[in-house]
C-alpha cells in the first residue's frame, strides 16, 4: 500500500478549517500514547489535562485569565504574520511592557486617583510598541532580518527585566527577593467578578479582537497588509509603501504584547517578578498559526492554549507530570498543523499497488 499526494486544482476550503482540527486530534492521540507509555491511564490523564481545570466557574475564570495575555499577543502577531513580517518578539515586547508599566507604577505608588491605572497601562503598551518599533527600524533602515532581531530583543528584554528586579526596581523591604514592591491599589486592574481573578483586561481582548478583525478584513490598510504578505513585488507595483506597513505591523503587535505584559503585572500578579510570563509570547506564535491568522480562529486557539497551560499545572499537581507538558503539546500541535496543511494543496491517495507507475496507467486506461 502506498500513500501518495496528488496536487489539487485549487486549494481546499474544507481543509483550511479541518487541518487545525485534525492537528488537535493528532496531538490528543499522540498525548494519549505518550501517557500510556509513561504508565499513566491515558483517558484519566487527558481528563485531568483538558476537562478537570474548567469543570467549575472558578476554573473558567482562570481560563479567561490565562487566555488574556496569549490572545492579546496572538492578535498582534496575526497582523504582522499577515504581512509576512515574522515577529517572534512578542515575548520580549510583553516583558518590556510589564517592565515599563511596573517602573511607572512603583513611581506613582502613592497615587489614589484612577488615572494611575490608565497611565500605567499606557506606559506598558507604548513600551511594547517601542520594542517592536526597534525591530521595524532595524529592518527598514538596515535591512536586518526581523526574525533574528526580535529573538535577540527577547533575550535583551529578559535580561533588562532581571537587572531591574535585582537592582533599581527591587523592593527595599522585600527581604532581598528579586521582586518589586506591590503596586498601589489605584494602578491595579479591578476584578470583574467577586470570586474570580479575571479582571477588566478582558475588555481589552474583546476590543482588540474587533479592532484586528476590522483592520484585517474591512479596511484598506488591512488589504495592503495582506497584499504585502502574499506578494511583496505586487505591493510595490501598486505603490503600497512597504516600510510604512512594516512599521505599522510591528507597532501594533508590539503594542498589544506590551498591553498583555502590563495587564499581567497590574492584574493578577500586582508587582514585577522575574517570572512575568511562562512563555506566553511564544505560545502566541502557535496560537496565531493555529487560528489561521484570523481573529475568530485565534480566539478558539487561544482558549485552547490557555486550557493547556491550566491543564499542565493541574497535571503537575495531581499526577506529578512535569509542567513542561504544556510546551510539548504546543510544539506537537504546531508541527501537526504544518504537516496537515499539505492537504490544503494536495489530495492524499492510497494505492494498493506497490509499483509506482500504476496510478498513471490506471488513469490512462480509464
Amino acid at each position, binding site marked *: 500500500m502506498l500513500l501518495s499526494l496528488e496536487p489539487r486544482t485549487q486549494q481546499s476550503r474544507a481543509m483550511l478549517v479541518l487541518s487545525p482540527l485534525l492537528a488537535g486530534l493528532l496531538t490528543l492521540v499522540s498525548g494519549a500514547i505518550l501517557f500510556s507509555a509513561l504508565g499513566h491511564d491515558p483517558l484519566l490523564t487527558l481528563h485531568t489535562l483538558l476537562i478537570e481545570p474548567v469543570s467549575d466557574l472558578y476554573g473558567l475564570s482562570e481560563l479567561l485569565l490565562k487566555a488574556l495575555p496569549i490572545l492579546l499577543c496572538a492578535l498582534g502577531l496575526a497582523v504582522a504574520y499577515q504581512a509576512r513580517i*515574522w515577529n*517572534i518578539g512578542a515575548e520580549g515586547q510583553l516583558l518590556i511592557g510589564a517592565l515599563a508599566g511596573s517602573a511607572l507604577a512603583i513611581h506613582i505608588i502613592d497615587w489614589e486617583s484612577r488615572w494611575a491605572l490608565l497611565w500605567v497601562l499606557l506606559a506598558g503598551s507604548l513600551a511594547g510598541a517601542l520594542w517592536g518599533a526597534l525591530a521595524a527600524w*532595524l529592518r527598514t533602515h*538596515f*535591512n*536586518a*532580518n526581523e*526574525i*533574528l*532581531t526580535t*529573538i*535577540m*530583543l527577547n*533575550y*535583551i528584554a529578559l*535580561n*533588562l527585566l*532581571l*537587572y531591574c528586579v*535585582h*537592582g533599581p526596581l527591587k523592593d527595599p523591604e522585600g527581604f532581598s527577593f528579586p521582586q518589586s514592591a506591590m503596586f498601589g491599589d489605584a494602578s491595579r486592574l479591578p476584578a470583574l467578578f467577586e470570586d474570580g481573578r479575571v479582571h477588566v483586561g478582558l475588555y481589552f481582548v474583546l476590543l482588540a479582537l474587533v479592532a484586528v478583525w476590522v483592520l484585517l478584513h474591512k479596511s484598506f490598510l488591512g488589504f495592503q497588509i495582506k497584499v504585502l504578505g502574499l506578494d511583496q513585488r505586487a505591493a510595490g507595483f501598486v505603490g503600497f509603501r512597504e516600510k510604512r506597513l512594516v512599521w505599522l505591523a510591528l507597532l501594533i503587535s508590539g503594542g498589544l504584547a506590551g498591553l498583555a505584559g502590563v495587564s499581567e503585572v497590574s492584574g493578577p500578579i500586582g508587582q514585577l517578578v522575574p517570572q512575568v510570563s511562562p512563555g506566553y509570547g*511564544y505560545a502566541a*506564535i*502557535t496560537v496565531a*498559526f493555529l487560528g489561521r491568522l484570523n481573529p475568530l480562529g485565534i480566539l478558539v486557539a487561544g482558549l485552547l492554549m490557555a486550557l493547556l497551560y491550566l491543564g499542565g499545572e493541574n497535571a503537575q499537581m495531581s499526577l506529578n507530570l*512535569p*509542567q*513542561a*507538558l*504544556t*510546551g*510539548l*503539546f*504546543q*510544539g*506537537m500541535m*504546531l*508541527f501537526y*498543523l*504544518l*504537516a496537515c*496543511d*499539505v492537504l490544503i494543496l494536495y489530495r492524499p491517495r492510497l494505492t494498493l499497488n506497490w509499483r509506482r507507475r500504476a496510478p498513471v496507467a490506471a488513469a490512462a486506461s480509464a
Partner: protein
Amino acid sequence: MDLDLLGNILYAMVRCGTPLLLVALGELVCEKSGVLNLGQEGMMLFGAVVGFIAAFVTGSLWLGVLMACLAGMLLASLFAVVALGCQANQVATGLALTIFGVGLSAFVGSAWVGKPLSGFEALAIPLLADLPIIGHMLFNQDLLVYLSFALFLLVAWVLLKSRAGLILQAVGENPDAASAMGLPVLRVRTLAVLFGGAMAGLAGAYLSLAYTPMWAENMTAGRGWIALALVVFASWRVLRVLLGAYLFGLASILHLVAQGIGVSFPANLLAMLPYVATILVLVVLSRNALKTRLYAPVSLGQPWKAGR
C-alpha cells in the same frame, strides 16, 4: 593586562565559541543546500538533554555524545518530513521545531535538573600546550573542542575542495538545474538537514557534558539563534564562520575581561552583550542588501518539488 590573563581570556573564548561553531557549521551546510532550518535551538536543547541523560545512565560520556547527535538528527528528520516532504513553509516549520524542541527537552529533562555529572576534562597536548598564549587556548581544551577543530576542517574541505561540496552548492543555488543534471535534490537536502541536526545535537552535548556538565531548562540561552545570525555574518563562508564563532565567544565572556581589568558591571546587563552584538553585526552586515543577496544561496528557504 598580563599574559596569563590574556591566555585565560583566549582559552575561555574558544570554549565559549565552540558550541556556536558546531551549530553554525551544521546550519551552514544546511543553508548551502538551500534549506533554512530555524529549529537549531530546539535540536540543540534536545541534544543537550538526551546526551546528558545517556551519559548519566550509562556512565559513558561518549555514548552521551553519540545519543545527542542521534537526538538532533531525529528532530531534524521531523523537519525534513514536514518542510521537504510536505513542502511546508520553512520559516514556520523551523519555528515549530524550536518550540517543540524546547517543550520536549524540558519534558524529558524535568527529572534531571540539577543532577551532578563529571563532564569532559581538559586534555593538555604535551609540548604544544606550553606554547605562550595560544598553547593554553588551542591545546589545553577538552576532547570535544578538538573534535570541533576536526569537524571545521572536514566541513571546510568538503565545501571548498570536494565534489560533494559542489553538489551541495549546485542544489542550493539552482535546484531545477541540479535536478535536470540528475542530482537527487531532495536527498541532498535531507542529508544536509540531518547533518545540521547532528551538529546541533553535538553542540548541545558540548554544553551539557563539557561546558557546564549539568542539565537546566533552556540552557542553550539562544545560542542556536545566534548561530543563525553567525551564518549571515559569515556571508555563508566557512572560514568566517570560525572567526565569527570565536568573536561571539569573546562577546559572551566579556564579564571575565571586565573583572580582569577591574571594572564592575551588573551581571544581567553584561549577559545582554552577545545578543546586542548579534543585532549590531546584523545591522552592519545587512545594510547592503545587494551584498547579502549575492552571497546567500539563491534558493534559500524556498520549497522545491521535482517537476514543477
